[in-house]
């Protein structure tokens, strides 16, 4: 499974080592969760509520059970352990039983001998709903009637920094909005559960957070954690969408109930309905500056719609609030952050985790401020950049590398792309809805962003690795979920480097070793990379002490420096480390049709140290693609709580024709103190400010205010009408 058993020789840290799973993946031999199969296997399928808000009057599973080939139909009544789960607060039912709080909420699951039988059985379950009015406006949630016993406010976080009453000589104000983005990883949710003789269950699961999947699943099954033996199955992307559990409990319940292996895979529609999304947000800002452009105060109100259940809303809001000002020195601030519950789809982790939404707003504000000051927008940013020794809005003083000025300069100094050739496919709208060349205007926009690396606010998200060296071959065992990011490559590079060996086997990631934490928060290079390094160093020491041994083995648990909770004023040393990034976007816009073509995105990024240049480039290009998607095309359309576009026909992600060239102007290598090998995580920064840069470029091309992403043609066309 996955990368297990594969061997490669070759490069050390800093070189473009090839992925150990690359060859099986190009051959089509790599086993994803979707590809797993077991003798006598049944197919699981979920019944989901079609309404965002309803009371469940009755559920009749009889007609489904009567279908030939159906082995089980399970509902809330069959949950043996805890009835609810959740990453931060266990507020989400395994199955809805009395109340439906979002469209797509699971009501029942079926196991059958064929996916078509399962589909028909799900359709045969009779549920009587009494519809209730959904709460869909996040602005009304806090004051509204609670739709859950825990209330409608996931978190209200206030940051008071310095003297928030300070007024600037120049003040700009704006309201911004970010739509709901989906991770849209290509490999839909999938898992295979196999019952064990001891009453436990073996779970092969596409995930990004294995041990917490295991713990949450075991709790709901009413089993001791060690009775659920979990292994990361090949995972087709994640981007935050697999941090929460979805089918884990369901598939194990079906396997335990039927005594047979059960496989579940979500269709694309179920995938859209079955995992959390990026929070839609409404953001109000007021920036205060001196005439010379020095920022003196920022006020903001942030309203994040968390949807029906908590997921990671609390931590997302913390990020949004802590980094609400952007990578600038701002002595005074008042940030009023809200994450609230509605009957919209649950929201949680997605690449950038709260920093993306506020970056779009604070960067729009910086451009607006520059215009009000009559100052160059880049100059304004350079005047206010954070440096080592400065405090961010939480009062935390930055002690590590803070190359904000460097990323800005490198990015803006890179050459601009040539003028458009006029080729049909290069124009906004492509060949299908081609722009008239005379109406095409070019625009250039710029944005800077930052966020934390690792989990914050006192969370000890450690990682564990076990290394065994025998006959010149190192075997590394770590439960870090490989979701495409290339950790398996890094494991080999680290072990080769530290142990000076060539053959490194990456063992399957499973729960027979300690937790590696989540593949999120740009944390695995630092946390699990550090765990692998630590275990390798212990093995090296053993070799020195005892040169003739037949094998050496060590396990290392890697913890980052401890962090604090935020106090009642939102102040405290809550974060471990930070990464900074700049993007410059160039767009062509047909101002009459409102069509946008993103021509190029240039970037410079603070990376600490590049451990694998080719993989770093892949992360940057892929992250920018998701940022471009949010800027111009990607949004879950949710109307009155009903999802209208849970498919790739209507939820559009960038194709080869939409994706611009990416120009990596510079990777700033200033080794980060405390980071293994000096390297910072690189996965999220590409997504943070790329959206904001594209939005700025569209403003530059059109003069439209662009206060909402994704930008739609009507936003530009009507704005152009207003201007003319």
């Amino acid at each position, binding site marked *: 499974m996955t990368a297990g058993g594969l061997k490669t020789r070759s490069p050390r840290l800093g070189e473009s080592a090839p992925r150990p799973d690359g060859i099986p993946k190009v*051959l*089509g031999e790599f086993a994803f969760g979707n590809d797993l199969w077991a003798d006598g296997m049944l197919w699981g399928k979920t019944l989901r509520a079609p309404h965002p808000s309803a009371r469940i009057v009755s559920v009749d599973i009889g007609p489904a059970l009567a279908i030939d080939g159906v082995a089980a139909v399970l509902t809330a009544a069959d949950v043996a352990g805890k009835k609810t789960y959740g990453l931060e607060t266990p507020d989400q039912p395994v199955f809805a039983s009395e109340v439906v709080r979002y469209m797509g909420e699971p009501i029942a699951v079926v196991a059958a001998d064929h996916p078509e039988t399962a589909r028909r059985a799900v359709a045969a379950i009779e549920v009587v709903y009494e519809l209730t009015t959904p709460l869909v406006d996040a602005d009304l949630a806090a004051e509204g009637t609670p739709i859950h016993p825990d209330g409608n406010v996931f978190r209200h976080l206030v940051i008071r920094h310095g003297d928030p009453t300070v007024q600037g000589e120049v003040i700009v104000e704006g309201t911004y909005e970010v739509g709901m983005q989906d991770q849209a990883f290509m490999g839909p949710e999938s898992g295979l559960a196999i019952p064990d003789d001891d009453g436990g269950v073996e779970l092969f699961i596409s995930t990004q957070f294995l041990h917490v999947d295991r713990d949450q699943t075991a709790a709901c099954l009413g089993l001791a954690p060690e009775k659920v033996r979990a292994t990361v199955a090949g995972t*087709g992307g994640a981007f935050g969408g697999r941090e929460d559990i979805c089918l884990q409990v369901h598939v194990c319940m079906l396997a335990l109930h039927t005594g047979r292996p059960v496989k579940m895979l979500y269709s*694309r529609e179920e995938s859209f309905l079955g995992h959390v999304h990026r929070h839609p947000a409404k953001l109000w800002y007021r920036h205060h500056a001196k005439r010379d452009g020095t920022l003196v105060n920022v006020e903001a109100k942030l309203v994040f719609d968390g949807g029906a259940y908590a997921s990671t809303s609390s931590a997302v809001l913390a990020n949004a609030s802590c980094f609400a000002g952007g990578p600038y020195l701002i002595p005074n601030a008042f940030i009023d952050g809200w994450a609230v519950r509605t009957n919209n789809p649950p929201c949680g982790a997605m690449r950038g985790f709260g920093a993306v939404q506020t970056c779009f707003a604070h960067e729009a504000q910086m451009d607006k401020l520059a215009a009000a000051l009559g100052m160059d927008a880049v100059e304004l940013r350079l005047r206010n950049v954070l440096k080592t020794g400065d405090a961010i809005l939480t009062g935390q003083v930055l002690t590590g590398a803070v190359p904000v000025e460097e990323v800005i300069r490198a990015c803006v100094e890179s050459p601009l792309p040539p003028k458009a050739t006029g080729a049909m496919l290069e124009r906004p709208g492509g060949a299908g809805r081609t722009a008239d060349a005379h109406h095409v205007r070019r625009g250039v926009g710029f944005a800077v962003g930052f966020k934390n690396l690792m989990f914050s606010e006192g969370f000890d998200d450690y990682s564990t690795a076990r290394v065994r060296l025998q006959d010149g071959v190192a075997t590394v065992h770590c439960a870090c979920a490989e979701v495409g990011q290339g950790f398996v490559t890094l494991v080999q590079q680290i072990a080769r480097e530290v142990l000076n060996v060539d053959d490194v086997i990456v063992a399957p990631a499973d729960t027979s070793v300690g937790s590696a934490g989540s593949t999120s928060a740009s944390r695995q290079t630092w946390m699990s990379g550090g765990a692998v390094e630590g275990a390798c160093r212990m093995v090296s020491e053993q070799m020195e002490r005892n040169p003739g041994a037949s094998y050496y083995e060590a396990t290392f648990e890697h913890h980052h420096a401890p962090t604090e909770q935020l106090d009642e004023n939102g102040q405290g040393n809550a974060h471990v480390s930070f990464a900074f990034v700049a993007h410059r976007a160039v767009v062509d816009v047909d101002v009459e049709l409102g069509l946008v073509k993103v021509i190029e995105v240039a970037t410079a990024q603070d990376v600490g140290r590049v451990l694998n240049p080719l993989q770093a480039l892949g992360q940057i290009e*892929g992250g920018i693609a998701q940022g471009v998607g949010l800027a111009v095309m990607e949004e879950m359309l949710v109307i009155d709580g009903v999802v209208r576009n849970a*498919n790739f026909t209507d939820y559009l992600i960038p*194709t*080869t024709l939409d994706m611009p060239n990416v120009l990596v102007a510079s990777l700033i290598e200033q080794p980060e103190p405390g980071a293994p090998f000096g390297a910072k995580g690189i996965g999220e920064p590409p997504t943070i400010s790329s959206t904001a840069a594209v939005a700025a470029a569209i403003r530059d091309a059109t003069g439209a205010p662009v206060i909402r992403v994704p930008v739609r043609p009507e936003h530009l066309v009507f704005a152009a009408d207003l201007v003319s």
Partner: protein
Amino acid sequence: MTDSYSPHPAYRLMVNGEPHDVSDAWIGESLLHVLRERLELPGAKSACEQGECGSCSVLVDGVLVCACLVAAVTVADADIRTVESCGSSQSLSVVQQAFVDAGAVQCGFCTPGLIMAVQDLIDRGIQLPHASPFDELATREALSGNLCRCTGYGRVLDAVARAVEASR
């Protein structure tokens, strides 16, 4: 599978030059389902089953199709080629090698479909008598039906350039 969904015609699929008899299968099964779940050929992936993503790309009588949109029974006796026919771990195809070398693989879920689409592009391109069909825009258009969520396509396009170069 129960008998409630009839008919269950028996048919033969020719996949990668090998005959496979399919019997007792529901007539509604897609080629993708039959390849993956009955013939132990899981190389073609299913990311949408709606013809939108290209992860299930295979060749049927030399034409690149989405296997999720083809009823298996309708391609009985056609010449079906899947990613499993492209190379082996001892000898990768030129396209496969280019994907590995260029760093075009991350999660890899889109990869088998892309390998098929790029191979098809090269095979068709080289037959074209004139011009260079491999300018970047043409390549982008040819691959625009294959979604990838991880790479942003930069390394994929580099892999195509490398494969074209190596195929000349």
